[in-house]
């Protein structure tokens, strides 16, 4: 059974700061009770995640982003939206995954993207200093949002009629 709040960290830990989402999930695992949140770390968002996404009330996507001051943490709502042509054969964005959950399983949860501006996405393991320093904030904000959603037990959700 998928917990009500699903946290998906994604990125490539072999491409420097691109692994920030992955690392944030590892940190969250350390301080999370079993079953409190759903925690998933993946290199890419793929269509296979849509079913688990559709069962959650809130999905938090943890990612790195280009642009902005390295280490700055961003928090944005995301709504279901189709990707541009050619996308989704191997990977998808958060909006596309929410759209897939709606189209295939009749239900798209609320979604938020928490991201941190990266400094370097070169081939290397480990995060840059500013992103490493920002990881605590990313984890804390994620935990706060997830905790509030659980305490409300009624996170907003886009209910969509399943087409036959």
């Amino acid at each position: 059974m998928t917990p009500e709040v699903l946290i998906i960290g994604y990125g490539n830990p072999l491409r420097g700061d691109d692994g920030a989402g992955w690392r944030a999930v590892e940190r969250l695992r350390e301080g999370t009770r079993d079953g409190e949140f759903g925690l998933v770390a993946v290199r890419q968002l793929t269509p296979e995640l849509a079913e688990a996404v559709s069962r959650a009330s809130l999905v938090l996507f943890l990612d790195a982003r280009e642009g902005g001051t390295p280490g700055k943490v961003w928090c944005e709502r995301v709504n279901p939206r189709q990707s541009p042509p050619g996308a989704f054969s191997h990977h998808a964005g958060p909006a596309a995954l929410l759209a897939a959950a709606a189209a295939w399983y009749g239900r798209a949860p609320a979604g938020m993207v928490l991201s941190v501006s990266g400094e370097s996405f070169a081939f290397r393991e480990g995060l840059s200093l500013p992103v490493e320093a920002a990881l605590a904030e990313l984890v804390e904000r994620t935990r706060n949002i997830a905790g509030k959603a659980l305490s409300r037990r009624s996170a907003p959700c886009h209910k969509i009629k399943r087409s036959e």
Partner: protein
Amino acid sequence: MARQRIVIDPVTRIEGHSKITLHLDEEGRVQEAYFHVTQFRGFEKFCEGRPFYEMPSLMARICGICPVSHLIASAKACDAILAVRIPEPAAKLRRILNLAQIVQSHALSFFYLSSPDLLLGMDADPATRNIFGVMQSHPELARDGVRLRQFGQQIIEWLGGKRIHPAWVVPGGVNERLSVERRDQILATIPGALAIAQRTLDWFKNTMEQFREEIRTFANFPSLFLGLVNRRGGLEHYDGNLRFLDSTGKIVADQVNPDTYADAIAEFVNPWSYLKTTYYKPLGYPDGIYRVGPLARLNLINGCGTERADQEWAEFRQLERGAVLSSFYFHYARLIEILYGIEKMEQLLNDPEILSSHVRAFARPNNREGIGVAEAPRGTLIHHYKVDEQGLVTWANLVIATGHNNSAMNRGVLQVARHFVHGHQLSEGMLNRVEAVIRAFDPCLSCSTHAAGVPALEIELRAADGTLLDQVRR
């Protein structure tokens, strides 16, 4: 009018990066066509100097779609270097992993990459001719595709520890036995997967009639076929020997020991592609051109060995008196193999021996050379290594399914281009059919060249003197 050239660069919805050039004559008719693989990786070279026991994990990194195939062929080559016969339960567990890989890869090819052409039409707007379009128009089928891929990936994760690049297969066997709980967990998912496979096959068979023109023109020509068969000539993906079949259905060579592959298969490189080309040596080039993969396998076997797949195979064989020649039927064969893979996994999991704890043989290197052959989703995969006295790799040769199919793909592009591409008017549907013939083979260029980039489509129309006459991008 001057001779012209059309370039499709890169080809989309395939694994890897490539382009197609079409050369037109003075009247605008297609005269020549080339499928160029534009990426280069070179795994054969940079593994030199590595200890042989690292090879399975290293070679699995060739591909993110079919790492299991490389893992298995590589481990088999290492078994040969150790000179061990691995325990039977280990061979059965490797078989299950390989079949799970074939199911998930075939599901990716059929549902994610090719179903947009089949469901939305070759002439549909490219803005919607993708899995998203399928998601909107046929959510049930898209959902089935996702579930089937998930099924295969989940089994890989349960057995190998992770979905991509599992390390469970090692020289000498596998590194952990299968538990009762895990076996039961996998068995519980079989009925759902079987239902999806059967439903999709039934739908596809009813739909094929709409694609008469594609069936007639998609790489539909006589060629040889190559694949592994078991001792009874049945479908084989893990072990067995090689069989070559001609277009009339006559066996040309049978039970060829894979260790002697170099006597049967010649390799060469064209100056316009990084992808190696192969042919059947005794017939020379181009008479020895052959195809591998699901279409070849179903053409050359005497039967599948599972109930439902055998029924479907019998129906498939009714398509032609000799071998089934149209490469459009790769899709059909892929679906039958999905069905077979699920049934066969169930058979293997219900064998009590599958729970044995005897899953690995240990030895020091006893041979300086090892060859491992298995059937990958896309066809016969050969790993061949030589090592020094310390067991360090001194030489490696990989013969990949997509390389075996290279000549047939080129010939297929020429055939479909001659039929659908006419002169100076470049239409989307026309060019998509040229791409779709390549897609039917499901080539994996990351595997076969041993890249990074953003897929896009670029078509250039050039005069004989190189002048750019027209250009389309998407």
